[in-house]
């Protein structure tokens, strides 16, 4: 078991875990009408590591990402980004420190790929050459030919759209990258390509990444740490092998076993640890 998977962080006094983590949720809950999306929950995410929020659809994992961005407001509790409590006054500024990628990339159809990527920078009045330089850097990072960036999203393949979406999320060089089912809409071959590329990009960037998925295989492939959720509650967090070895609940084994036949396909080496 790699060193990072120890239980030590959980034993830190409350004050310090809140302030050390890049993202800290304290007693956060959310209901949609009568339906509980998240039960009151304490969660921390440390800088430089890759987390996967795993669970069936409706377990509250996407809601968790939106809470971190302030896209939905919590019924109770606070969200801290790098120690600051997320509130309307600092919302825009904190959002700029987080990159967000969704399933279909969510590229604005009226803008070209490069306009999509540079949108925030233009709003912040970056100089043209600086934008251009960053565009080239990012295009190289996601392995997209620069010329493709002058196309509209309707002219790009699903995989290309997702790469552009990633570029857009990374434009301001955020501390945190949140990805909601980033591979969910892609066909298998493109998916495998992009999955491998994403992992190498994450290693190069050394950012905190939180990926939402229902796919155990994908979780195993990316995660430094998996957070398994069920019905708005955290069931267990740890590496895949930990989850298999010491399931906190019969549901853990059940959930993983349901997708087990696919597990042999992927590399089973544990990813190298982050900077933490």
């Amino acid at each position, binding site marked *: 078991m790699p060193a990072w998977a120890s239980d030590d962080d959980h034993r830190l006094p409350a004050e310090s875990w809140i302030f050390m983590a890049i993202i800290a949720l304290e007693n956060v809950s959310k209901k949609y009408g009568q339906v509980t999306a998240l039960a009151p929950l304490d969660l921390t995410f440390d800088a430089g590591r890759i987390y996967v929020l795993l669970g069936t659809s409706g377990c509250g994992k996407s809601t968790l990402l939106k809470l971190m961005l302030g896209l939905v407001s919590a019924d109770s509790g606070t969200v801290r980004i790098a120690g600051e409590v997320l509130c309307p006054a600092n919302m825009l500024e904190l959002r700029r420190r987080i990159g967000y990628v969704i399933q279909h990339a969510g590229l604005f159809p009226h803008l*070209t790929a490069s306009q999509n990527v540079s949108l925030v920078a233009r709003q912040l009045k970056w100089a043209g050459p600086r934008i251009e330089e960053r565009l080239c850097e990012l295009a190289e990072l996601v392995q997209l030919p620069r010329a493709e960036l002058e196309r509209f999203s309707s002219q790009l393949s699903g995989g290309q759209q997702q790469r552009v979406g990633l570029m857009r999320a990374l434009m301001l060089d955020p501390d945190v990258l949140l990805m909601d089912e980033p591979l969910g809409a892609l066909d298998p071959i493109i998916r495998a390509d992009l999955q491998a590329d994403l992992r190498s990009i994450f290693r190069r960037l050394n950012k905190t990444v939180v990926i939402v998925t229902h796919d155990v295989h994908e979780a195993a492939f990316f995660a430094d740490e998996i957070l398994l959720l069920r019905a708005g509650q955290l069931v267990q967090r740890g590496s895949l092998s930990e989850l298999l070895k010491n399931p906190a609940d019969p549901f853990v084994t059940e959930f993983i076993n349901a997708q087990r036949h696919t597990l042999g396909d992927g590399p089973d080496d544990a990813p190298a640890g982050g900077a933490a």
Partner: protein
Amino acid sequence: MTRWIATIVVLLLLAFVPLSCRPQGLKVGSKKFTESVILGEMLKSLAEDAGTPTTHYRELGGTKLVFQALLNGDVDVYPEYTGTIAEEILGSDAAASPGAMEAALGERGVLLSRPLGFNNTYALAMLATRADELGIERISDLARHPDLVFGFGNEFMDRQDGWPNLQQRYQLPQREVRGLDHDLAYRQLNLGSIDVTDAYTTDAKISAYELRLLEDDLNYFPRYDALLLIRQDLASRFPQVMSSLLRLEGAVSEAEMMAANSRVELDQISETQVAAEFLRAKLGVTATIEKDSLLRRVTERTIEHLDLVRKSLIPAILLAIPLGIVAAKSARSGQFILAVVGVVQTIPSLALLVILMPVMAALGLASVGLGSSTAVTALMLYSLLPIVRNTFSGLRSVAGEYYETAAALGLPAGYRLANIELPLASRSILSGIKTAAVINVGFATLGALIGAGGYGQPIITGIRLNDTGTILEGAIPAALLALAVQGGFELSERVFVPRGLRIRRGD
């Protein structure tokens, strides 16, 4: 951002740079029936004969509207009838004696001339053959035929001295009573779709259609002696004109008026010409008649029409898009805004004009005539709904994922609106503007009801004179203009709808 500001500035310039100025000199009004127009033309020639430049606002939409214009000072003089003054203007509670009438109008700054010489009262008319068939000679006889279909001009339907009180006085049992445009009533009589209509006793069509006027055996209809209503300040503003106008007092007999009406309606001679002939024969006044070519007329109407459209549509766009944005952003005010612009749409055009006239007068704006704010405001109000609704629904239909990603990028709300939400809704907004523009071009014909000109002018003249050629002179250019506007907006999609929303996959 600069592009938007520039667009708005250009639009405002397009909307408000005046092409024509408010006319100077005397302003004569007339209502939208032939006799009134002929008398208006006579007044114009008499005033010009006295050396005063004169504008004649022909065919204004109705009694209330013309009288309001007179009170506002947008009309200085117009021909009216004693019965109408007693029943319509002063209301039935006012004493009908000339002295009482004069006093009541005097309080409102209006003078009466002495009668012009003829009594043009209301009467009920039937085809003579049909009346003989049923043995009907007097209005009382109608009570014996409850199945007869009545069709009355819309004004007669709700006048104090119109149908409701007539029915009461004669205890008429008829159930099927239709309101229609009076100019169409005779044709309906001829077709047999109605049996009885209201008519004026000097109407040229009475003999032409072989109508029987039914005897008013209970003396229901008041006298309708023609006279002039004149603003009190006219004598001081145009001292030389007053005596010239008053030369019409006692000068027109019933026979002469009916002959003049018949010259216009049956012989298709212009009102100007007929008025001039009468003045020369009777008063020895020589009037100059300007000859108009078709091309010049159409060009002039087109300019007037476009003037109405630009002054109403552009402010409507600038007002409706923000309203649509507010509606889309806030659920409560959204329902309110959509309800209000929806209700505005249901107000009948003539009613809206009459409501707006005193408002415009209070604001010191011209309420009738070319470039009048009343028509422009009414058109603007009618243009709001399609734009507000399409802006609202366009913004509401922008997919949630775009709102979410735009917000997640950390873009401020205003920037998101201008750079993401509005461009994504642009197609819907533009199509709302296109609908509003086409409706506006059609509705702008209502400008003619208050002398604002445009293609509506030949249309109402043509309907009045039953002259299809004249109707088409307004209707064809109006239709062509609507098509051109539609086409123009299709082209403008290339400018205002972002290219990314116009291309298809694989381009």
